[in-house]
């Protein structure tokens, strides 16, 4: 039956995430962006909340909670309200853990999932995006060629978060034209981690180019074993995660510019009391809510294990536009003040522009 009310348990997790975003992330995000790094202590604090490990079954050392895209979306929105870079860093291990949890072969689950149930943050990541115009996740240039009892991978990847510190990488490559996942452990011969990338936004998140040169891995490292993985579902989980994050980021920009507009006086009145500003804010509020509801619907489809490509791609396209509209207006409402780095809105605009590029960099 149609309902828009999260469960009590979800509300608890959300309020925990909200508190962390407000108390911890909001204190350091500007500094993180300027310095291009995130203090380990923050990551360790949030890791102990068990956001990634909570859905790992008991038999693999986890608490065995339900894995839900709706819950994941709710958390992602709250965290992204705090800061996008830190959120993507925190949730980065899920890029590896969730596909293994959902689609991994039994041996893969046994081998890898317990690693994410430790007290200490486990850096793991996934590599999907390729550094070229016209990148299409369904038509990858990186290839995986069966060779004897293993696979040989070749290609270039970029925007691989935390690649340098990750012990495990899930690399997506074309195997006979279809995208599949391949597990590559750190220090595998042929895997080269490049320099840390310099991006317009998400500057606090360490991302890397990696290259694979005749990188040979055992056959059992193919995600899902012989069955392979449902790559489209992974993409949909990513679209939903990013839409939720776009919603959270947009909400931050909306709230900040709204509060500013009520404070800032021009011609004897707060600028918010002029329709030119007030209507911008109203539209921002409406589109944020619309995106959130569409995200929930797509997440709900994923949780029912249904085909969610239409819903997930519609909301992702909508969220990409929405977050740009909202963050751009937030800068506009602050005017010159929005352009200077004393205020966060320029940071949110830079981060917001990235969503259209970030496919595969977050997952629920």
């Amino acid at each position, binding site marked *: 039956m149609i309902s828009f009310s999260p469960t009590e348990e979800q509300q608890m997790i959300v309020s925990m995430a909200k508190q962390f975003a407000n108390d911890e992330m909001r204190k350091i995000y500007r500094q993180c962006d300027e310095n291009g790094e995130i203090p380990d202590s923050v990551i360790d604090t949030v890791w102990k909340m068990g956001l990634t490990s909570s859905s790992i079954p008991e038999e693999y050392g986890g608490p065995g909670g339900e894995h839900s895209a709706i819950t994941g979306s709710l958390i992602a929105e709250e965290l992204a309200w705090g800061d996008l870079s830190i959120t993507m860093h925190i949730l980065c291990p899920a890029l590896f853990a969730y596909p293994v949890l959902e689609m991994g072969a039994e041996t893969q689950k046994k081998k890898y999932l317990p690693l994410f149930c430790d007290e200490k943050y486990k850096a793991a990541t996934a590599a999907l995006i390729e550094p070229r115009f016209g990148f299409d996740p369904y038509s990858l240039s990186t290839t995986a060629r069966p060779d004897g009892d293993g696979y040989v991978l070749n290609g270039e990847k970029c925007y691989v978060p935390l690649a340098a510190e990750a012990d495990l990488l899930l690399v997506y490559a074309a195997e006979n034209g279809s995208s599949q996942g391949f597990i590559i452990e750190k220090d595998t011969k042929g895997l080269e981690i490049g320099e840390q990338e310099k991006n317009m936004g998400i500057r606090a998140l360490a991302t890397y180019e990696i290259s694979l040169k005749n990188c040979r891995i055992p056959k059992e490292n193919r995600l899902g074993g012989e069955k392979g993985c449902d790559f489209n579902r992974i993409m949909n989980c990513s679209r939903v995660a990013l839409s939720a994050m776009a919603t959270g980021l947009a909400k931050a920009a909306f709230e900040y510019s709204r509060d500013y507009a009520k404070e800032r006086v021009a011609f004897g009145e707060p600028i918010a009391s002029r329709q030119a500003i007030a209507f911008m804010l109203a539209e921002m509020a409406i589109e944020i809510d619309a995106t959130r*509801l569409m995200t929930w619907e797509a997440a709900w489809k994923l949780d029912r294990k249904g085909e969610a490509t239409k819903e997930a791609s519609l909301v992702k396209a909508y969220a990409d536009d929405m977050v740009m509209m909202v963050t751009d207006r937030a800068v506009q409402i602050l005017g010159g003040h929005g352009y200077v780095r004393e205020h966060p809105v320029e940071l949110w605009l830079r981060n917001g522009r990235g969503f259209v590029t970030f496919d595969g960099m977050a997952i629920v």
Partner: protein
Amino acid sequence: MIDFELTPEQKEAIRIAHEFVEELFRPISRYYDEHEHESPQELIDRAWAERNKNTLALGLDVTASLRIEELCWGDAGLFLCVPGPGLGGAAIFASGTKEQMQRFLGSFNEGEPKWGAMAMTEPGCGSDTSAISATAVHDGAEWVLNGEKIFVTWGKRAAENPGGLVVVWATVDKSAGRAGMKSFVVPAGTPGMRMEKLEKKLGIRASDTATLIFDNCRIPFENILGNPEVKKVDKSQTKGFKGAMATFDATRPIVAAMAIGVGRAALDFVKETLEKEGITIRYGVPKQKLTALERDVIEMEANYKAAKLLTLRSLWMMGQLQPNNLEASMAKAKAGLAVTKITQKAVEIMGPLGYSRKYLLEKWMRDAKINDIFEGTGQINMLIVARRVLDYSRDQLK
């Protein structure tokens, strides 16, 4: 629990409504668009005969939203011909007493077809509904109404067909401002109420949009909705006005649901036409690989979905008895504009098929536009959303 699954009853309601409009609305859509002010008597009789099987009354919840969408997918103008308590009923539900609900609506479902209407707009005031000049004067056991009301949806049918009713907004004390604004139930056929003219419109031509004149129209004292007292202590008192606004919280999501029905009709037409041409819209393809046509259709679909979910939420809240003033205006503002754009884009994409009166698409574009106007224009609803998100009063944000 966040859930989007329809109940079996809701699925059945949609199915019944869909069959109903496919059989009864669509075949006569064009005729009543081109024969404005002719009454689709067969449809009215049939809808009335089946009113219990295919409940067309406006229950205000998610199911109502789904049903209204379906009916307006069929034809929004004909939907507005279907007998029922309509906006008059919504006003009575929003601010009447239990006794009044029983008295005015208790037997609405019996006998001959009946309509309910709400008369708010005047020649001199549209969106600024607090500026109404129609008057209600207390005289013994009666109220005496005087004034002119325009753009009354269902106005002719509600005022003239026995058993119908018109909820009229009038001021009992002009000097009291909004606090003096009250609503009154005027039964059909009451002497002093007369239908002056029917509008000729851009769209929803099957719907009667009437001017009603109240000339010393006398109604029983008990026909006032809400408290007859005017609290004049403070001019900012807006209690009477709040009755009108509570009505809008109920009716705006309904208009939003109507809008998305029309929007979906246009979208379905576009998709079916493309399918016949062997063109499929690809989802999940990177933006730079999509055709311009695919981008357009995807944008239309996403906007339809956004409007629909905002609408469902506002009616879900209503069903949960949660205050939904902000959400109702969000849904109305979004849906009105979204379907205006969706239908206009659909006509553009379909080219000669879109512009020709041989098909219904051009009619849906004309029909869609009203949803961005009645029950508060898009701009008025944006203003309400803005005030709410800014926590501003009407004086702080004009």
